[in-house]
């Protein structure tokens, strides 16, 4: 359970979470923390690890095409027709 007073990993980008995780690990392996501090760092590290891990796993392919219209820039699904495998499968407009 995350305690109060620290950023929820849910708001972090993959890169931010990974960098934060690496700093926690550095602090832990440097061996200068008390057991309580170590446990807290560890707990936060596990949250960050899960966040990164989920991001790596739960990726959904998104490809959009930019089109300039009178209303401005629009994003539409890329129409590639029946083409190569993997390039026309799980595509959709970026929300």
């Amino acid at each position, binding site marked *: *359970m995350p305690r109060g007073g620290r950023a929820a990993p849910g708001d972090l*980008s*993959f*890169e931010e979470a*990974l960098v934060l*995780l*690496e700093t*926690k*690990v550095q602090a*832990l*392996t440097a*061996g200068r*923390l*008390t*057991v*309580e501090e*170590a*446990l807290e760092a*560890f*707990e936060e*590290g*596990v949250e960050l*690890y*899960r966040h*990164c*891990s989920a*991001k*790596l796993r739960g*990726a*959904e*392919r*998104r*490809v*959009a*095409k*930019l089109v*300039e219209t009178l209303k401005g*820039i629009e*994003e539409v699904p*890329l129409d*590639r027709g029946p*083409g*190569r495998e*993997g*390039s026309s499968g799980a595509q959709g407009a*970026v929300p």
Partner: protein
Amino acid sequence: MGPAPEGTFGPPTERLAACLGLRHFHSTPTPGVITTGALPTGPGKPLARLDTGFRTYTSEDVGARVVLSVAELTEQLRFIVGHNRFLQGLWIRGEVADPSAGPSGNLYFTLADDEARIHCVMFARQARALAFRLEEGQEVVVEGDVEVYGPRGTYELVAKTIEPSGLGAQYLALIQLRARLGAEGIFSPGAKRPLPPFPTAVGVVTSEHGAALADVLLVLGDRWPMAPVIVAPARVQGEGAADSIVAALELLARRGGVAVVLLGRGGGSGEDLVAFNDEIAVRAIRACPIPVVSCVGHEVDWTLADLAADARAPTPTAGAALVVPDRAEVSLHLHRTAAAMAEGMHRSLIGAAGNLGGQAKLLTTAPLEELLAHGRGTLSTARTGLEGGAAAWLRMAMEHLEAQGALLEASGPPATLVRGYAIALRGADRRPVVSISGIDLGEELTVLLADGEVTCRVVGVRPQVT
């Protein structure tokens, strides 16, 4: 014929000399024989000299047959050829035959057409800068000077530049544009921006219907599917291609949220790279607020787009691999980081357990039990979320913690005291005494026993005899 003053020529000779660009020319009425007519000699000038530019004759030579050595003849030819503006700084078109590289790096070849051939040499310094490979049968335009090569009694062309024929003018214009943009710093290494390690979204500027886009999408989806791909379609060849590339880059910049842009096209025969060498496209790459990676598949060494981009890849596939990390590698790194974290936690617990006996604050078991309970909870939640090596470390940490807990219950301070041990404390903050150093005679110490405490005064300090 009267004596001709030095440096003046008879009318036809003068025109010829001026035409050949010779510095000095003196006519002699009978070729090969020096006559007084050509020399400003007289009673007062017995040692007058005639300088023909390649040999000096004196009055003693008058009336004598002039016999030249081969070296002298060659020297005369070298002089005439070397000072003739029609034989220096020439552009010659021809077909390359027998190209070969010497051990010193010099490039040798023959330039030929249907009727004649001339041997050519390009010295290593220039040959290294040559942007393409010289091949048998290739039509080229060579810039160079004609030179007489004495040791072999031949004349040859010393080439300074070689251009593929036909592309000549276009190529020259390209070189000039490169020099101009280079002077502005557009290709400067200092202007290149680093690529984001984990791009949030990837922009792609290429033809919507080309094979390059399919390749790029395939690689991006395979390596890093988390990043949305935003395609800004552009024409990559033909009329209006450069403008189209500029517009696509601007569109991506206006949309925002794109961390890196791939700009390119596939290679293949009949490739048309004009758009990627166009000044407006090159300037748009440098002006783009997002780092641009060029991935123009081609046979030639470079396009100006490659030089201006923040990074370049030889093909669209390689470009896609350059802009995103590989998910499998990142995953491995993440697991290793988690394992290091679990190992660090493990070590912390071992360290803490080792210190337990000496810690006065652990005299009561309550905080320890709290800590242990917290630790067990954290570790067991964490374990379900970690994989592989990290989970193994955690299991070890938990087992260690359990063992320490049991050990503490059995041999924690209260149990120890029952077994006859005592703990000495000093000062108002009741710090445990772990060494004789700093103990003063007469100082009061508190000694804890199983059923209470005793206040004592120090009457002697003796180091342990080992």
